[in-house]
């Protein structure tokens, strides 16, 4: 099925924010906004829900912590206790550093992996780049056009905030 998009191109982030806000107020769903950097407040303006990556990070942390502790306890206490000057094999405080390091490692790798996966980022992937200028100095609002009315309304709003150009783009999916 092919999808029809209307793209409004801007050279500053302020009008983009205002336009996105206005579109939402008028009940038009903004498909996406493309920008060269993260615009503070855009997630609120577009109504993007807070990501749950923080929860994922916590879970990875718990996994990392458990793995580290069970590894050390298994290796140094159950499988092959080392006799160091007659001291007990279980020396709690000694396990703090490695537990911490592995927790951090697994949290970081797990969370970044999850981020790349949900954002469809991977080495060698052909990104769906809408315009090469969005990685430089252009800001593009993309609205999916389902009918003529939406097209007209969107065009008006995009124009009223001073878009440099308005284009159409059809994607095959």
């Amino acid at each position, binding site marked *: 099925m092919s999808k029809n998009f209307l793209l409004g191109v801007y050279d500053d982030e302020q009008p983009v924010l205002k336009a996105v806000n206005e579109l939402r107020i008028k009940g038009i769903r903004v498909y996406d906004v493309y920008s060269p950097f993260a615009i503070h*407040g855009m997630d*609120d303006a577009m109504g993007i829900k807070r990501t749950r990556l*923080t929860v994922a990070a*916590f879970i990875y942390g718990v996994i990392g912590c458990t793995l580290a502790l069970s590894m050390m306890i298994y290796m140094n206490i159950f499988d092959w206790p080392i006799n160091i000057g*007659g*001291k*007990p094999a*279980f*020396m709690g*405080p*000694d396990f*703090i550093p490695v537990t911490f390091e592995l927790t951090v490692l697994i949290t970081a790798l797990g969370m970044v992996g999850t981020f790349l996966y949900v954002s469809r980022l991977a080495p060698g992937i052909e990104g769906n780049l809408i315009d090469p200028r969005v990685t430089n100095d252009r800001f593009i609002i993309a609205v999916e056009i389902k009918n003529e009315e939406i097209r007209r309304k969107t065009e008006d709003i995009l124009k009223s905030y001073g878009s440099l150009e308005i284009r159409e783009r059809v994607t095959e999916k």
Partner: protein
Amino acid sequence: MAHHPTEFKVEHFTFDDKLRKTLITLIVVGLVIAGLGVFMAWKGENAGHDSHGEHHSSVVEQNIPSALTSNETESKAEVAGETEKLQGEQTTDSATVQATETHVAEANTHSAHAEGHEGGHHGPIWLKRFWANILLNNFYFIGIAIFGVFFVAVQYVANAGWAVSLKRVPESFGSFLPVGFVLMLLLIPGMHHIYHWMAEGVSEVGHPNYDKIIAGKSGYLNMPFFLIRLALIFGIWILFYTIMRKLSLKEDEEGGTKNYYKSIRTSAIFIICFAFTLMMAAWDWLMSIDVHWFSTIYWVYTFAGLFVSGFVATVFFLIFLQGRGLMQHVNENHFHDLGKFIFGFSIFWTYIWVSQFLLIWYANIPEETLYYVPRFLGHYKVLFFVNLFINFLFPFLYLMTRNAKRASNSLSTIVLVLAFGHWLDLYLMIMPGVVGENNGFLMEIGFFLAYLGIFGLVVFKALSKAPLVPKNHPMLDESLHHHI
């Protein structure tokens, strides 16, 4: 996230009679409880005097001469025998465990009583406990007071804008410093109950109280120098508090940026002075209780704990003022940042805690482990873990989510818990060295409440004397529009 161009009204806090009465009642109640506590302690001691006292003195007699007054190598061997079980407890059978416990108990009493009793000051325990309480609460509230000044100074040096609109709150904590000074002076008559090195003749060769290790330290630990340092510490703190407060109030009147830049310079100098004075304060007032013991990280540890309780106090006063309809411009974003600081510094405190404990535990050298014997293995074992739970695990898990840091409701829980937590931390730093196993909580709670009342009286008075917001601070606008 929406906000409106600010129509900002400068607010004033009025210290009304009702609040004053409440605080005075708090002080009275606190003193009554404390008095009751003192009475109970006194009575308990006298009732059980025969058996108890005998036991203690016998322990002291057995252990002290060899451990503390003979030459170093012997004393090392002695304590080593007692403390090597630090790491060995797990593997021993029940008989040995019992033996260890007895050992530990002895070591415990010995480290505590040796220092108090042996010095020719067979002062009653309840009196020691009384003075220890004064020291504990003095340090706790003086710590919060100096934190206020330090926090404001750091904000200036770091060019931080976010906290400007709430800076008058920590700033006003500094007004407690002169009161704190007086309270420290009041402690002087009782100091010899707390600090064993103040006992007569400890550094006099041939005197029955002679203690070689303490004698070695007498170049630093002697009464005149101690008092000079005490005066110096407070002199510097009060001086800088006065200057910085004055500059801030002048800025309210005059506007412009002259006072702002002056404040930055003053703050930079203060921070340097603060480092030295805090270091001395930690060594003098706290570390020298366990006079044989030493740890280089100790002042960092003291600093970390004081920082958390300072942030906690800041949040407490903010929530209180908001409850009176003031300081409404301090919104969830500011609380979020304060929450992050509490979270971060709780972890920092734990980091320093672990650094000190782990290194001493790992190396297992008797000169050092003697500090942890009563705390980690002995009488204070439970409180030792409670301390870690309250000051690390609880804030770590509780403050992890974004919402917990942003809502003043959830922050007030953490304020209550951590305010107690870091008081308990100080309790564990002071009590084992002063009263040994004869600790308690009734007198302690009473004094804490009384001090809280005094601190409230002083700080509220300071708050009422100036506008709640530094209206001409050049970064005020950033703070009012703080959004994260």
